[in-house]
């Protein structure tokens, strides 16, 4: 008999967030960029993309000198550095030190590429018989590199897990952290993800004809693909009791998580959105909320024709007639698709919307597809004193994750 000893049901608070995105290093540039309705998707310089079909991505700007120290390390990948910056920012925001050796803490990360950019450089060197290849390029090339790097730097001794279920990874990682906190396995969780631009994913999505030549246009008529982004995000999660005891102010609560699988196709979503709907229902049930209690949605919304259509149908299945009137925002329109960490950075965007009392807009991109009549927030932030919000992640391979956040003080 499994006799895991669980504590009483706990409300799980978000007490700190940190981010790195195409808008820059930090939460402040992320929120300013999202609120502006601009897109950080443009030409980029990580690698020579002249031979690729498309030429835009949401690349993270150069590391500010002020942040160099906390992300230093000879054998770290770019994604590791993003992750470390986000982790230190989140801990500082939560009023916690950058050393967790004395805490019962865990790290829960979602990632698709990890240190693949560095791994690619090494493999390309092998293929072109480049002399004196640096093995250090491989030191953190694995998908679990960023999560492990954060745990190592912070002295974490509790559970550390990296999930790599394509675009659902970040959402699943937050769900894993929620489980661990509720079960009393950890007192403190750092949940998030990190991914960096690399040529395999850029070339691979292009080979699938899934990348748009222009910044992506989620839910719009004539949308023709996604935009790749990069970055990292970390949320500090802890029980409400613990947060209040140490004088921390919750930014929001992670109220529920749900997961499902389409079991349909490797690259195409189940067209009726049944898998996505199942994940949303599971998250709502976990949060103890009815569909009518959700005030806005941060949608997965990649901008690919099939994904957005399936997601809309999932909304209709769960929210019924209310689906068309539910405010929806699509963070990927601003910062691109962060792949395995997209669910986590969109979770942070959701928290920020709840915190600021407004839903960030999706950048301009033409008329909303009349076949998918979402109430897409456009132009400028929409004031909304929301009580609860939903964030969805629908992955390559059919894995789906949904998260429900509630406003602190609601």
């Amino acid at each position: 008999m499994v006799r895991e000893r669980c504590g009483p049901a706990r409300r799980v608070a978000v007490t700190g967030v940190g981010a790195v995105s195409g808008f820059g290093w930090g939460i402040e540039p992320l929120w300013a960029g999202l609120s502006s309705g601009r897109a950080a998707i443009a030409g980029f310089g990580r690698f020579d993309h002249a031979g690729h079909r498309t030429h835009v991505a949401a690349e993270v700007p150069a590391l500010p000198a002020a942040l160099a120290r906390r992300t230093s390390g000879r054998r770290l990948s770019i994604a590791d550095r993003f992750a470390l910056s986000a982790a230190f920012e989140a801990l500082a925001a939560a009023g916690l030190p950058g050393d967790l050796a004395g805490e019962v803490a865990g790290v829960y990360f979602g990632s698709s590429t990890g240190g693949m950019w560095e791994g690619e450089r090494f493999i390309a060197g092998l293929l072109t018989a480049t002399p004196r290849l640096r093995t250090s390029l491989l030191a953190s090339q694995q998908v679990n590199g960023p999560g492990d790097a954060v745990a190592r730097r912070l002295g974490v001794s509790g559970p550390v897990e990296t999930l790599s279920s394509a675009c659902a990874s970040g959402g699943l990682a937050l769900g894993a952290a929620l489980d661990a906190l509720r079960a009393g396995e950890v007192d403190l969780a750092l949940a998030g993800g990190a991914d960096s631009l690399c040529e395999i994913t850029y070339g691979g999505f292009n080979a699938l004809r899934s990348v748009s030549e222009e910044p992506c246009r989620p839910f719009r008529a004539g949308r023709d693909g996604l935009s790749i982004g990069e970055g990292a995000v970390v949320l500090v999660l802890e029980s409400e009791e613990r947060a209040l005891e140490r004088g921390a102010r919750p930014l929001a609560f992670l109220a529920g998580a749900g997961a499902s699988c389409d079991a349909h196709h490797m690259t195409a979503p189940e067209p009726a959105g049944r898998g996505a709907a199942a994940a949303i229902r599971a998250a709502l049930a976990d949060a103890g909320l009815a569909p009518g209690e959700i005030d806005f949605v941060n949608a997965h919304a990649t901008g690919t024709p099939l994904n957005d259509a399936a997601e809309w149908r999932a909304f209709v299945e769960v929210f019924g007639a209310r689906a068309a009137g539910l405010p929806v925002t699509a963070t990927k329109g601003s910062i691109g698709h962060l792949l395995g960490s997209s669910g986590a950075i969109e979770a942070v965007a959701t928290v920020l919307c709840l915190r600021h009392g407004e839903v960030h807009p999706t950048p301009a991109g033409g008329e909303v597809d009349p076949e998918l009549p979402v109430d897409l927030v456009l132009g400028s932030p929409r004031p909304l004193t929301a009580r609860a919000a939903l964030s969805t992640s629908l992955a390559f391979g059919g894995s789906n994750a949904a998260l429900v956040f509630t406003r602190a003080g609601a």
Partner: protein
Amino acid sequence: MTGVAITGLGLVGAYGLGTEGLAAALASGAARGAEIDRSAGYHLPDSARSAILAGNLQLAPWVHPGEARRMSPPSKFAVAAARIALAQAGLTPGGGEPGEGEATAVVLATAFGPASFTDQLMRQIVREGPQAASPFYFSECVANAPAAQIAIAAGARGANVTVVEREAGVLLAVAKGAAEIASGRARRALVGAAEEIPPLVHALLDRFRALSRGAAGEEAGRPFDRRRDGFLAGEGAAVLVLEREEDALARGARPLARIAGWVRAFDPSAPATDWGTGAAGLALALDRGLARFGLDAGGFDRVVSGASGALAGDRLESAVLRAAWRDRPLPPVLAPKGVTGEYGGGFLSAAVLAAAGMPFGPTAGFSEPDPELGVIPHDGRPLAPPRRLLVTGLAAGGAAVWLALEAAGAAP
């Protein structure tokens, strides 16, 4: 809380389809190493040459050739292993009661993903240009392709999760699947690992000196041995069927074993590419984690150790075991990675076979005790069937997972 039973075990790898070949190898203590293809030029001249390879397996009875041509090698391994496991459990993929698919989760581990397809994609991009990249290679090179293919093959519409924590990943997958069931979110879970060891992965592991280069003669994984010089990489897949114990018993299934608990921890002293030295911290985490399940190290009568022949890995493993048991003698320690190799699920399969009471022969690769380690693995003498087993998984880079298994016949 719900009990979790293991009712099916599917294995695909160097010892064939199913567990018969592996069981024979474990009973005799004989590994089946094979020579890796080094012709791509990825290897250093003095590199390791051996691995525990799946070879030319005939998967057609379990994966139709029409399906197989749309899959990477680890996806094929995984789907075959899942179907074997479901058949052993007496279950029909996609069949059963309404809602069964929704209540079936998949949690699979991989360390390197479908790496031969990643290799092919890189070759296309580097040598022929980015627009030569194959959409097929890309869609099947993602880490979660094998888990997704299992879901499609089995109609499993519950949570679908791929975990990546190197050598600890396979036990993490089992723990997460068991937690899905124990929490009530799933009634059934297909859990395990899938891995391929193409020349690229072998060469890269070798560059970090992770693999045995045959310092003591033949290249071999030598768990706890003084002459150990690295492990042999293993490929294949192992999938377990986990289900609520009450469901299994109600439908007349005969559980192979029961999952009694799991512990997760991290050793921050570990560098990214090797094992650390934080035995005291890990032993403390193990002690506290077991207590959450009402368990204690002294209550285990068998250890199935993840020792592989890695220099620092086996040093850490033995230090953690000695610290966890304090002044108590260790129970018999089985160390099957000399046979199964590292990765690919062979180790998990060996652990379940051990829990099911299968006899183990002498530890493959072990002959000279290392006085620094102070752990002598099983010498092959007959042992009483175990009641409760601790399965250990310490990863290079720091992750650690332990699994507590109980014999199916033992009182919970």
